[in-house]
């Protein structure tokens, strides 16, 4: 499983709690060790705050307009923690010849907490990259969520929680009764200053959150942020049970989502951006959504058998109906690619997306149909899977919904990116179609010519329809995943955020022919909805 931010926040919080629970008097060496780790911890928290959107201290001072309250809170907290860290740095610089004991449990706990927090920050940073102008650019579907106000508020709440726990405890380090007598006065004073600054930082957030506390959903989302790495490939084995198929589907769909982003960044130069690759994409999408409809119908039936609430049954039924609307749209695109083409290209081996798509087709097909080694071939065709076999328990319904949910989400993203690639190809006059004439009963096919504007519009309109219906499917599955608390519930939250992941098709970049209601301008709204 991919690591999540919560995997680092939880242990960091536990270690801080363990450190501050130590009430015994610390020996001098351990006091110095604690002060050093406290300083490291404050610097790490400052780095977190540096990453948050908002002006730095100088920009804020130069701005005539008042800052947004959250930006002001970030600024105040950052200034306070930075002062605390500077104070501790001064304290440590005065201790050049001092013996520092790093083995004391308090020091160990703080050191480990710092390690977890630093690793957590690294995890968040995997979602961003530094652009050519030094700007911070999104590199994942999660990046806008991480930068969103609710999640920022949740992160501030976490930082404030640490600060308010650490402040009174670290203040004790500077008090003569609790610290050994050989701690220099300047060091004690610096620790006291840092403790005070830490308390100020925590109090600033606490005050800001008094009227508008971060929502539990935002905190849950913060903990669910995954590392921006694709999970390793899980090749279909032919002996997978339903639970394995569901898990494998989620992994494969997640890999597809990552592949789409990577592909989109290099699309104009990619040898795989051809009608052949788009044709394979819509073929796989048409089969997957068709199988998804069968799966959702089976789950609807099973939910009734298990006497689940009518609301869940209605949602399952609704998702099945939405799927039944979506797969014919993909099939319609496939029919267009029977004729239109970007030309013949020799590509060495299948594209990554094609390989992952083939895995996804097999897994979703094997979920939908009874035969364990199902493939699209007629020889492996079988009856639709029995609902009780598909999902023996409520937990299995949730797992299968999660699988279909991730698959639908990946397909929606791919269709949106492919649509943009097709638009770019058309604008670049790289789309061709054969000319036809009809004579009696025969259709005469002539050599390829550049695709006519009306044909391009038809293809783009088909993509629009497919994306719109697939967005409807994913919306229904978002609701279901939330209602069932499926592991894919964060996808719904991601969709709620406006996506600005830079790719190969910046708005206004390639000028597409703006000639009909199916023009790209019309499509932008859909793209925003699907998060492409």
């Amino acid at each position, binding site marked *: 499983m991919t690591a999540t931010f919560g995997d680092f926040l939880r242990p960091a919080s536990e270690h801080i709690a363990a450190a501050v629970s130590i009430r015994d008097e610390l020996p001098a060496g351990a006091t110095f060790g604690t002060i050093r780790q406290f300083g490291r911890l404050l610097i790490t928290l400052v780095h977190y705050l540096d990453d948050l959107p908002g002006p730095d201290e100088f920009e804020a001072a130069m701005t005539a307009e008042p800052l947004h309250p959250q930006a002001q809170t970030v600024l105040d907290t950052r200034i306070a923690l930075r002062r605390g860290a500077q104070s501790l740095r001064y304290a440590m610089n005065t201790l050049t010849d001092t013996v520092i004991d790093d083995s004391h449990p308090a020091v160990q706990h703080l050191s480990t907490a710092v390690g977890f927090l630093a690793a957590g920050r690294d995890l968040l940073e995997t979602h961003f990259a530094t652009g050519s102008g030094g700007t911070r650019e999104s590199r994942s579907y999660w990046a806008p969520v991480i930068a969103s106000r609710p999640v920022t508020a949740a992160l501030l709440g976490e930082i404030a929680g640490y600060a308010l726990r650490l402040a009174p405890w670290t203040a004790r380090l500077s008090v003569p009764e609790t610290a050994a007598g050989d701690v220099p006065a300047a060091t004690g004073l610096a620790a006291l200053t840092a403790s005070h600054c830490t308390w100020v930082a925590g109090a600033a957030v606490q005050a800001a959150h008094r009227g508008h506390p971060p929502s539990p959903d935002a905190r849950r989302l913060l903990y669910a942020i995954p590392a921006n790495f694709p999970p390793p490939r899980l090749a279909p084995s032919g002996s997978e049970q339903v639970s394995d198929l569901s898990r494998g589907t989620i992994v494969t769909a997640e890999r597809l989502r990552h592949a789409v982003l990577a592909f989109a960044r290099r699309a104009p130069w990619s040898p795989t951006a051809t009608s*052949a690759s788009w*044709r*394979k994409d819509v*073929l796989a999408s*048409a*089969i997957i959504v*068709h*199988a998804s409809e*069968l799966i959702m119908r089976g789950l609807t039936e099973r939910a009734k058998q298990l006497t689940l609430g009518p609301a869940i049954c209605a949602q399952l039924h609704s998702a099945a109906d939405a799927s039944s609307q979506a797969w*014919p749209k993909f*099939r319609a695109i*496939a*029919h267009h*690619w*029977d004729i239109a*083409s970007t030309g*013949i290209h*020799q590509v060495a081996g299948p594209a990554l997306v094609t390989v992952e798509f083939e895995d996804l*087709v097999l897994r979703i*097909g094997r979920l939908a*149909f009874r035969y364990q080694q199902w493939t*699209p*071939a*007629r*020889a*492996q*065709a*079988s*009856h*639709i899977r029995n609902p009780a076999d598909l999902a023996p328990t409520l937990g299995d319904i949730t797992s299968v919904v999660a699988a279909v949910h991730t698959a639908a989400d990946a397909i929606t993203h791919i269709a949106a990116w492919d649509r943009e690639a097709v638009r770019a190809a058309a604008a670049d006059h790289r789309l061709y179609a054969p000319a036809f004439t009809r004579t009696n*009963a*025969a*259709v*005469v*096919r*002539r*050599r390829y010519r550049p695709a006519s504007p009306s044909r391009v519009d038809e293809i783009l309109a088909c993509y629009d329809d497919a994306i719109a219906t697939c967005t409807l499917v994913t919306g229904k599955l978002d609701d279901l995943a939330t209602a069932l608390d499926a592991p894919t519930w964060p996808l719904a939250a991601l969709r709620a955020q406006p996506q600005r992941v830079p790719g190969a098709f910046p708005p206004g970049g390639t000028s597409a022919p703006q000639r009909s209601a199916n023009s790209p301008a019309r499509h932008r709204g859909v793209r925003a909805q699907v998060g492409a």
Partner: protein
Amino acid sequence: MHDVEALMARLRGARSLPELLEASFDAFEVIRILARSSEDIVPSLYAAFMTAADAAVDGRQAITIAPSLSQVSLVTTPPAAGADIDTIAVALAALGELLDECLARAADRALIPGDRAACQEAAKAGRRIHQLMARGQ
């Protein structure tokens, strides 16, 4: 399935590479049209027919780049409808198998590298169609 039988006769009777390429082009096109028209009749065969139609496009595209393909217009007669789904599947499997055989043989004999590559690719598509449409053991 008279159209398919006629196409199979054309494939078997082709006396030159251009003739074979033209017959193959038409055969792939007939497979595509028949597979497309059969896609949503039986849910359990939807994936099979969709994929077979896609393989037919692959085969046809491969043929298109063969240097020996005639420059004249190619004629494709829409196949007659009315056959049941099993008959169509069996016919497509047989046509795919024959395309594989004929084109693989042509690839071995082709003198121009472009023809050889086109025939190999198209033969692969024919093989795929046969695998997709063949009845199970």
